[in-house]
């Protein structure tokens, strides 16, 4: 007791769930939709009404209400701060989402992207007024070519899948230019990202799926058997989606080239090998680089990214517009095709904001730091792999992995616990689950990518947590898993209901 009579020690009470009047649970506060709290007449932005002026809208003026509610500034802050607290984030914990590379986002990159010279430059300003921006693009392009050992790069694609489209278009353009229009098949391993076959389909090519070996990699002999005069290209992810470096990649590239086809490499996992080997030395003709994965970016709930594509000499001429050139001692933009360019992929010049962040990351790391980052990412994944291997099943045995460790669900057989249940139980332990059920070639896949951003203490706690959960699953504590998560802002959501009766926007309640 202090001298005002306020108790300073907790009182012993029986535990049990507390039902609150508000539905809130301490710091976890229920938050309505904007449309339930906003008002049509409210605004959080003070704007002076303009002076009287002639109307030049013609007869195109809006009639009637839009129906958009507004909030004052303090209400806006509270609404979105409360919503933000319902998210898991890298800044708050380990985010082992395989294939997505959730590494630390240096805040320096944000500061640099917000410099007025970059953030407040318009893409159509006279080129004399944006020499710094063009220099930055050129410097980043140079760094990407150096890291990949490739002679050219197309900077404008807006994300990985857009880069794939760009690279495959360049391949198709080169094939057309050579008069080889019968090449309309793309070889895609069954373990590939879904974007690969979707991209091939977008440019009117058909997909021939090639199987992986039992060890999770692609055999050069399989590729050779699938090649023919109808094949335009192979799309191969390396390191692949099982987290393995394709050991026969050089032979695969040679076979593909011998058959007159091109080697497209999905560079989603380039982060594992930067500074260790160069795709250009492996025989790659085109590869997109997810700047937002390899060189970090604030993912912001799903983008934006950037997907520049490095190109081999025989594809370089087919890169899209625009691109930066040096003319008479200054930098200029080529915005209209002058030769065999494949055309334009998007308005303006690409994801400048991501370019600044990526270059900031690259300069900060330097050649030594980039190599160390790759090594640490690979080391962390292998550490996690060996520390869990006695409890969980690794489909490809004791083989070392690259930057991500893959497990299947064989070890859960007969426990009554699925990969999904195991992942949801991780949420109750304060972790974002790993990637689940991808790649498709492994049953009940769990793909763990810890990245280079985790300390050993953080990795050890993560490993101990997964070991504890794994032992509980094996001991038959099914209830713990099938009901999980219990401690998150929401329990499992009914996805079937969402898909069967789609409610994709707010609508005022009837009556």
């Amino acid at each position, binding site marked *: 007791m202090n001298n005002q009579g306020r108790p300073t020690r907790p009182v012993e009470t029986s535990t049990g769930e507390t039902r609150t009047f508000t539905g809130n649970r301490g710091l976890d506060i229920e938050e309505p939709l904007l449309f339930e709290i906003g008002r049509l007449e409210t605004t959080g932005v003070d704007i002076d009404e303009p002076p009287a002026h002639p109307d030049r809208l013609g007869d195109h003026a*809006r009639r009637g209400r839009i129906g958009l509610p507004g909030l004052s500034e303090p209400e*806006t802050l509270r609404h979105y701060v409360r919503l933000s607290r319902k998210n898991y984030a*890298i800044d708050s914990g380990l985010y082992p989402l395989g294939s997505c590379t959730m590494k630390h986002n240096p805040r320096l990159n944000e500061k640099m992207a917000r410099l*007025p010279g970059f953030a407040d430059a318009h893409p159509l300003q006279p080129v004399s007024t944006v020499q710094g921006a063009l220099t930055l693009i050129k410097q980043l392009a140079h760094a990407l070519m150096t890291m990949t050992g490739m002679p050219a790069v197309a900077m404008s694609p807006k994300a990985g899948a857009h880069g794939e489209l760009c690279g495959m278009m360049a391949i198709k353009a080169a094939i057309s230019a050579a008069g080889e229009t019968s090449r309309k098949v793309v070889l895609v391993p069954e373990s590939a990202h879904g974007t690969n076959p979707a991209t091939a389909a977008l440019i009117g090519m058909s997909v021939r799926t090639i199987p992986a070996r039992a060890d999770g990699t692609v055999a050069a002999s399989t590729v050779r058997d699938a090649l023919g005069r109808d094949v335009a290209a192979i799309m191969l992810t390396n390191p692949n989606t099982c987290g393995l470096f394709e050991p026969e990649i050089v032979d695969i590239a040679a076979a593909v080239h011998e058959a007159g086809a091109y080697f497209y490499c999905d560079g989603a996992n380039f982060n594992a090998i930067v500074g260790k080997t160069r795709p250009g030395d492996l025989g790659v003709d085109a590869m997109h680089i997810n700047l937002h994965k390899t060189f970090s970016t604030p993912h912001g709930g799903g983008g934006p990214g950037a997907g520049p594509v490095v190109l081999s000499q025989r594809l370089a001429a087919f890169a899209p517009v625009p691109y930066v050139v040096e003319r008479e001692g200054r930098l200029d933009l080529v915005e209209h095709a002058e030769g065999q360019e494949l055309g334009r*992929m998007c308005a303006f010049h690409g994801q400048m904001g991501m370019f600044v962040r990526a270059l900031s990351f690259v300069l900060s790391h330097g050649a030594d730091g980039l190599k160390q*980052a790759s090594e640490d990412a690979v080391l962390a994944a292998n550490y996690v792999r060996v520390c869990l291997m006695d409890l969980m099943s690794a489909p490809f045995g004791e083989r070392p992995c*690259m930057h991500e460790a893959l497990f299947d669900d064989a070890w859960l057989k007969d426990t009554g616990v699925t990969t999904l249940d195991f992942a949801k139980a991780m949420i109750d332990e304060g972790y974002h689950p790993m990637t689940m059920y991808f790649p498709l070639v492994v049953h009940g896949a769990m793909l763990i990518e810890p990245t280079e951003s985790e300390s050993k203490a953080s990795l050890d706690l993560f490993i101990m947590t997964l070991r504890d959960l794994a032992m509980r699953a094996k001991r038959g504590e099914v209830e713990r898993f099938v009901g999980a998560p219990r401690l998150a802002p929401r329990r499992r959501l009914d996805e079937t209901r969402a898909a069967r009766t789609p409610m994709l926007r707010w609508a005022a309640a009837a009556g």
Partner: protein
Amino acid sequence: MRYLPLSADDRRLMLAKAGVADIDALFADIPGDRRLDNLLAMPRAMSELAVERALGTLAAKNVAAGSAPFFLGVGAYRHHVPATVDHLIQRSEFFTSYTPYQPEIAQGTLQVLFEFQTQVALLTGMEVANASMYDGSTACGEAMLMAHRLTRRRKAVLSGGLHPHYAEVCATLARFAGDEIDRLSLDPTAGEDIAAAIDDQTSCVIVQTPDVFGNLRDLTPITEAAHAKGALLIAVFTEVVSLGACRAPGEMGADIVVGEGQSIGNPLSFGGPYVGLFATRAKYVRQMPGRLAGETVDADGKRGFVLTLSTREQHIRRDKATSNICTNSGLCALAFTIHLSLLGEAGLTRLARVNHANAVDLAGRLARLPGVEVVNHSFFNEFTIRMPEPAAVLVEALAARGIIAGCPVSRLAPRAGLDDLLIVASTEINTDEDRAAFADALRAAL
């Protein structure tokens, strides 16, 4: 290296645990003769201060839009963004989260996307909107492909008022898919006869309003002509603030509405990242590209949100997917939603009135200059002037006087024979003094 937490001791212990002698043993699958023995030919690691110096030097070589009277638009607009927006999007929990694949711990992002979809649907006058595309131009290309799927036809008619970059994105997609494009010639006065170009092979007509020259277009008769031939109407906008003053495309019968959302919440950033808006009719939703957030309930019956209808998407449907898009513009969509929540209908419509008033004022000043003519019948915050000399020359002359004057049509279409046209925008950013300085400088340069 400040971003890497492992110490040399940690690495040694972890390598031992992994059962390998050195780190290169973990890279053993890389063929020996293809391994890099030396460091990449790049500079070594730099301190935060050194990187700031290097990039600060580059940034200083650009003329920031805010440092000069500034009148450029054409698909990217300079607007004032309240300080609250950038503060909120940098909340770690929004900023450093990924695509909401685990909805129980991503309700923040999912609810924002649901709010975003609702705002976009309301603004465009449509029934449903997706959770964003890369930008307006790629959204436009995706809309064309969606129309092909819906109509099972493969020819798109592109208005001559469509932003040339958008038209080129469509042309690139069409060329590689083997589809047909009928692109009408650039049309500064909106006098084209689009209906005459529609036939029974046409899948869609793509029309922009305000168009690239700033003209406002009535989509109703074009929609009727398209529908009469079984084609769809795709409405495009590049300035979303115009929807605060002008009729919504949905009211004029559009089947798909796409546009650029950068103006609300997002900086110019030299062309990206931006946020593509994509809306359509409910009956077409299963052919829509991109992610969708939908409402549902959790195991306790509480309302919650999930990504839904994903059987349209590449990770499920692979080569039969509606699009190959995966990463979108989540963070830019968040900025859009927060800024629009701050504005509300009252703020957005007033902002639109200020934009229109500023543009009307500028058009009046420029039209009074000898030899200068405003070509538009109508406009919102952007219009086109015809000048007695090539616009590109005058723009350079004005840039030398510290004024960013607008975009010469020749920059967008060098072979169109429209070298005397300049596209000029005036938003709420511009002051009376800015507009007077522009008119004075142009008078002096002519």
